[in-house]
């Protein structure tokens, strides 16, 4: 007798990623569902324990702060994968490439002629009030005219099965190491499913990342010196910084390891002496990058780094200022941005958005606060938002005041019926809400990860998938289906 009985799996309230109806797995998930249903309770317990042990021995952690001290927590992981059919994924991939290509053209335009503003496609005030626009970046031509080399876009699926782009993370998106590690864990835990050979592999990412970074080098004829710049062990994503450096075989540096001399060249301090650095994959926010230009108190950055970057002697990925398009108000204009630069219709839809800066939209938002999700323009990690239907009247009233005080900083979207996926819980599987973060690399060409990081809200009915707030993750399978 198995713990997993798909007949009694409750998946009718939302779109479920694996099952079309109770007892009816979607074609791409059929094999997996059969295998899982065949597991005895003991089988299941063993697989779950194997995953926990793998995570522990592989040392997959993320860092949280609690009462002033730093704790490395084991990465919360659910062994039931999330499955996307390959044909759907190819469409999604094309949509992501289109989107990131347009976003890079948009950023490049903003730091040069600002044609899109002059043509009144995006209102000037959006730019004027953007906290992530960096005047210091005007007129700069980064290699390939690409600013956001690494982008992590969050996708969610609504009740009718439509996949929407929820946001684009263009500053320092994280999570890709967990995507890769999730696959390693799943291979250990469910090897029999991989034997079918229909699951597309994900492990090219680090090689692609390295090649992309190397292609930015100002000294293309030499073997480029690429480094990963981390704020240090206290950063919540330090595990990922170390992981990526290790997988690419490059140095993991901190600000204090780098110096910029009067010649505007960046060096790292090594036991061989000062060694020139060509490309920096920086995992530090713009404002901490260079105390000469930005926050003068920053000890995480490197004095003179912007000088070196502006004179083209070092490449920074992502380029400073790329975050201007990583703004939830700019987000609302992305369909227009795609149309403007590429003259194409967006392949992936945006979630309908109301911008509080526009009077009409703001009126609507204030009147419908109990139906909407309101987000500040520039927060990440799910902080500072209002989920209208779940908020108390006093929370809504307080938020209304905030919106009126700073309308440019807020946008609102209808609450989506986020899709679910079966997730192992005590006594079987239950539906839990999921999202998806694919990663897009842009250099001489654009590459998308095969699938991405699926995050899951482990708490029943919760919509919050962030690992810092009780979220977990799943392996994501792109599965060939013989055109079924």
């Amino acid at each position: 007798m198995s713990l997993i009985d798909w007949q009694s799996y409750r998946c009718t309230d939302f779109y479920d990623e694996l099952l079309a109806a109770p007892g009816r797995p979607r074609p791409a998930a059929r094999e997996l569902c059969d295998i899982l249903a065949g597991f005895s309770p003991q089988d299941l317990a063993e697989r779950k324990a194997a995953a926990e042990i793998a995570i522990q021995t592989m040392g997959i952690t993320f860092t949280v702060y609690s009462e002033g001290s730093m704790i490395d927590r084991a990465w919360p992981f659910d062994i039931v994968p999330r499955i996307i059919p390959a044909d759907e994924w190819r469409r999604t991939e094309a949509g992501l490439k289109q989107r990131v290509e347009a976003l890079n053209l948009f950023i490049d335009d903003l730091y040069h002629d600002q044609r899109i503003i002059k043509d009144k496609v995006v209102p000037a005030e959006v730019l004027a009030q953007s906290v992530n626009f960096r005047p210091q970046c005007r007129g700069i031509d980064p290699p390939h005219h690409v600013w956001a080399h690494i982008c992590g876009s969050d996708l969610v699926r609504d009740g009718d099965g439509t996949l929407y782009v929820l946001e684009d993370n263009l500053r320092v998106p994280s999570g890709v190491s967990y995507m890769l590690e999730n696959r390693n864990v799943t291979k250990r835990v469910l090897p029999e499913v991989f034997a079918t050979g229909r699951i597309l592999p994900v492990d090219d990412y680090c090689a692609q990342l390295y090649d992309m970074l190397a292609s930015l080098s100002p000294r293309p004829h030499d073997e480029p010196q690429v480094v990963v710049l981390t704020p240090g062990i206290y950063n919540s994503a330090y595990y990922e910084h170390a992981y990526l450096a290790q997988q690419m075989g490059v140095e993991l540096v901190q600000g204090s390891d780098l110096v910029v001399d009067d010649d505007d060249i960046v060096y790292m301090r090594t036991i061989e002496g000062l060694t020139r650095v060509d490309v920096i994959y920086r995992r530090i926010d713009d404002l901490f990058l260079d105390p000469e230009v930005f926050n003068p108190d920053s000890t995480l950055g490197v004095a003179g780094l912007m000088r070196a970057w502006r004179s083209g002697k070092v490449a920074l990925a992502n380029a400073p200022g790329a975050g201007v398009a990583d703004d939830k108000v700019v987000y609302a204009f992305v369909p227009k941005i795609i149309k403007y630069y590429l003259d194409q219709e967006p392949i992936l839809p945006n979630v309908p958005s109301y911008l509080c800066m526009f009077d009409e939209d703001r009126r609507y938002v204030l009147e419908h606060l109990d139906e909407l999700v309101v987000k500040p323009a520039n927060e990440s990690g799910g902080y500072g938002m209002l989920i209208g239907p779940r908020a108390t009247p006093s929370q809504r009233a307080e938020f209304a005041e905030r919106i009126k005080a700073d309308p440019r900083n807020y946008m609102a979207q209808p609450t989506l019926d986020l899709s679910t996926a079966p997730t192992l819980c005590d006594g079987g599987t239950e539906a839990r809400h999921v999202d998806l973060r694919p990663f897009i690399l842009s250099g001489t060409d654009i590459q998308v990860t095969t699938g991405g990081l699926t995050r899951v809200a482990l708490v029943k009915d919760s919509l919050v998938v962030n690992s810092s707030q009780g979220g977990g993750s799943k392996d994501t399978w792109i599965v060939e289906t013989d055109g079924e």
Partner: protein
Amino acid sequence: MLSRVAENLYWMARYIERAEDTARLVSVNSHLLLDLPHQTALGWSTLIDITGGDELFDKRYDRRSEKNVVHFLCVEPDNPGSILSSLAGARENLRTTRDVVSREIWEQINELYLEVRDQAENGLTPRRRDGFLKRVIRGCQALTGVIEGTLSHLSAKTFIELGRHLERADMTTRILDVRSGNLLPKDPEELRPFEHLQWMSVLKSLTGYQMYRQQVRLRVRGPDVLRFLLQNQHFPRAVARSLEALSWELQSLPRHDRALAAAALVRADVLEADMQALARSTDELHAFIDQLQIGFNNLHDAIVTTYFARLEDTPRGLLQGEAISEADDED
């Protein structure tokens, strides 16, 4: 290898060696005092002198009692040289660089630190102290074993070895300095009955008694002990031996000339010293050990400026030289 990483590993090894040597010192002193009559002026006070913590100690404690001294040397968090602080320092240094060493090394340091911290209050009673100190010494030795058994002999290990050997040489001379300051007879008749015992204790602080007996088959006497602990080429805690090992490690590093020269100088001082003369006079020995300490400092400085230098310490010529060659290949 990044300078910061090399520096962290070097200090980690120094801290571990310091913790171990301090534990040896406290352990042997405990045993020694049990054999001496109560009125002997020696006691726990000299241990404070050895570790150079006089001022700090006197600020925090009113008496140099056994309990206070042991507490200060073993677990006092405000004493940067205490066993607990040393292990905490080692752990902190490794924590930021743990990706470059094997996981077992991190686990060993982490466990050792946590164990010592948890026993800080209860482990020091006279009855439990011996076990506590043994665990520290064994823990540090186990760590050395894990490093030896799991870490490739590349730059990371080289910097660990440099730190360990320099700290060991330094601690050996400190132990000699203060112990012998009390031991060498001003009047040849003074303290006669105990002299033998106390030179034995110097050897035992360094686990050198058995090795000494194997190589020197005479009764334990001052000049012979000094010769053994300073000049012996085989005993792992002898100063000459530590410097020899350190020099050998240095040769695998780039740009090692300055540090190697500093090591050679201080080693020559050790090997050329006249042990008979040093054993005759407290003052002469003390001056000699001061000279060695200066040599160790020079060696340390040479390592720091060559390999760990920050920009402000980097010789200008080097920087500009590199910049010019880079500018050349830009064309």
